[in-house]
């Protein structure tokens, strides 16, 4: 065994040394030979738990690999014009079920980013301001219920938010803005914003409250006002956590399916207008996978879109994770 080094404690070693150090004294109710049996059981249990964990890891790896594998034949096969090249070359249309299928995913990418951007533009200022209020300005009694209330918003299933936007909000928005299409990019963006607000709020509020009280006390003692302290001391100190909140909110918005499926209008237009219907990548998969032939070109393209979603959200999650670790390193000196 290697020396312990600077690690002060390792549960595994302590565990085994404790086993070896079991004194020969037996409790009254334990039968002779019990110890041996218990040790055997312990070893079997450890192996079982270990293999369960490995099975879980295997499944995770399988998901990573499988979704991509189903899309992979696109690289060398060409069934009905479905190739990776076709997904990015003109014509810029998504018409998978026509005489000559057109599989360009750029309208879907554009639609996804358009809707996500609107959602972020709406959600970010609201959620960050509310987080600042809750963490810095609200009286403690109000704080007790504001946070759970906003977290309840996170608990609303996305299909319910989509339903509300479809039945109620879309008509209001149309009446206010006079849209030609009742369901369009802005409606979808607002609906998506509702789903993203609690995520950005919760993570950034956690980051703000994690800032040690001494920061605030030092700032206030130097004569700064509460607002100055919040904006110029606490907020910058919590910056990595805020960045994590934005990145994770963005990731959630990109992959969210039911809201955009219900309220985006689902037309794959190649347009920048906010008042046009859009179709996102997730909604495309959701609405087309049900009718697709197993193993066909269209099927593979849908898996290709799934792989794109997977990769984009993975990168965002990884970034969010890193930001959060930076925050902890910054505030507490260790990751």
């Amino acid at each position, binding site marked *: 065994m290697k020396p312990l080094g600077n*690690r002060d404690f*390792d*549960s*595994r070693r302590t*565990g085994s040394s*404790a*086993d070896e150090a079991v004194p020969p004294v037996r409790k009254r109710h334990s039968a002779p030979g019990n110890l041996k049996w*218990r*040790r055997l059981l*312990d070893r079997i*249990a*450890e192996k079982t*738990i*270990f293999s369960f*964990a490995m099975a*879980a*890891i295997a499944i*995770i*790896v*399988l*998901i990573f690999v*499988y979704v991509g594998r*189903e899309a992979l034949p696109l690289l060398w096969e060409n069934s009905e014009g479905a190739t990776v090249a076709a997904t990015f070359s003109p014509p810029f249309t998504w018409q998978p079920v026509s005489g000559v299928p057109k599989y360009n995913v750029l309208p879907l990418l554009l639609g996804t980013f358009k809707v996500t951007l609107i959602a972020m533009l709406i959600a970010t200022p*609201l959620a960050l*301001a*509310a987080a600042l*209020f809750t963490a810095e*300005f609200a009286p403690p009694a109000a704080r007790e219920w*504001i946070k*759970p*209330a*906003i*977290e309840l*918003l996170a*608990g*609303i*299933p996305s*299909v*319910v*938010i*989509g339903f509300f936007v479809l039945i109620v909000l879309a008509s209001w928005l149309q009446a206010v803005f006079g849209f030609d299409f009742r369901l369009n990019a802005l409606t979808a963006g607002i609906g998506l914003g*509702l789903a993203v607000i609690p995520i950005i709020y919760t993570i950034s509020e956690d980051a703000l409250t994690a800032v040690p009280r001494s920061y605030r006390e030092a700032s206030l003692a130097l004569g700064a*006002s*509460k607002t100055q302290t919040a904006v110029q001391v606490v907020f910058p100190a919590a910056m990595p956590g805020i960045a994590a909140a934005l990145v994770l909110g963005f*990731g*959630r918005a990109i*992959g969210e*399916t*039911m809201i955009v499926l*219900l309220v985006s209008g689902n037309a794959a237009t190649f347009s920048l207008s906010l008042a046009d219907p859009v179709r996102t990548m997730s909604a495309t*998969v*959701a609405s087309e*996978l049900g009718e697709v032939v197993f193993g066909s070109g269209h099927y593979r393209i849908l898996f290709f879109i*799934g792989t794109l*979603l997977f990769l984009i*959200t993975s990168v965002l*999650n*990884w970034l*969010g*994770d890193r930001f959060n670790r930076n925050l902890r390193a910054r505030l507490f000196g260790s990751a």
Partner: protein
Amino acid sequence: MSKSFDRTFVALTLLATVIIVAMLGIILGNIVYEGTARLSWEFLSAAPRDGMRAGGIFPAIYGTVLLVLLMSIAAVPFGVVVAIYFAEYARTESRLYRWTRMAINNLAGVPSIVFGLFGLGFFIQTIGRGIDQAFYSGRLLYCQPSLIWAAMTMALLTLPVVIITVEESLRSVPRDYREASLALGATRLQTIFKVVLPQAWSGVMTGAILAISRGAGEVAPVLFAGAAYFLPLLPTHPTHQFMHMGYHVYVLSTQSPDVEASKPILYSTVLVLLVLTFLLNVTAIIIRNRMRQWMNR
């Protein structure tokens, strides 16, 4: 000057908070107001009639509960065992642990629609086809969307939630407890089951409840894994299709022949779904707060 700026700034952040809470209030108020008009015992206990314009949603409630039940049976014990491995056995500095933890964190953020893709391609088309060919000489039984595959897909989706919450709660049990137990001659297994797990029980419950509430509200993964618009019979076999509340809302609000006529039913279905997920969430939040108070004491 700066004082008035301060006040405006605080007022603005207050305004943002009020807007968010008001939106929550409007959504809930609208659904409760419109939803209760139609709610009755018949609605909860009868099957739909007249092309979804009358009757109830019992089969959808039944299907959702059954799905969530099967999902938890698969996800919760498995997730708890993996969490035990992470918190009690794995070396946190090892590469295996760090990579796996990262993968699980990542999996928790992967869009649910990707799980739907995986469920269709892997469970139905690969495993299901394999079972059919091996045991039923190619007769179509498992190689089609069904309750069992939907539950498996959901279980994968909620697995990271269970693992992360349970691991956290296991880690919150003070190390002294383990040391004391081991010093008294208990094996690691005994320590885990008799000392650590009872202490972390509320965390395990929170994990399970959060997973269940997520599972009850998710629709995207079951879109092509076995949810059906209407079924005359309740599912009795794992290979049967099932009705699902969230899916019911989705289909009824997009493909109903007469949206105005089905609106009351739709609202009541949404209300039932909402009440179900909220009860689960509130329970989880209460347990979590209790746990925090208990830990701070």
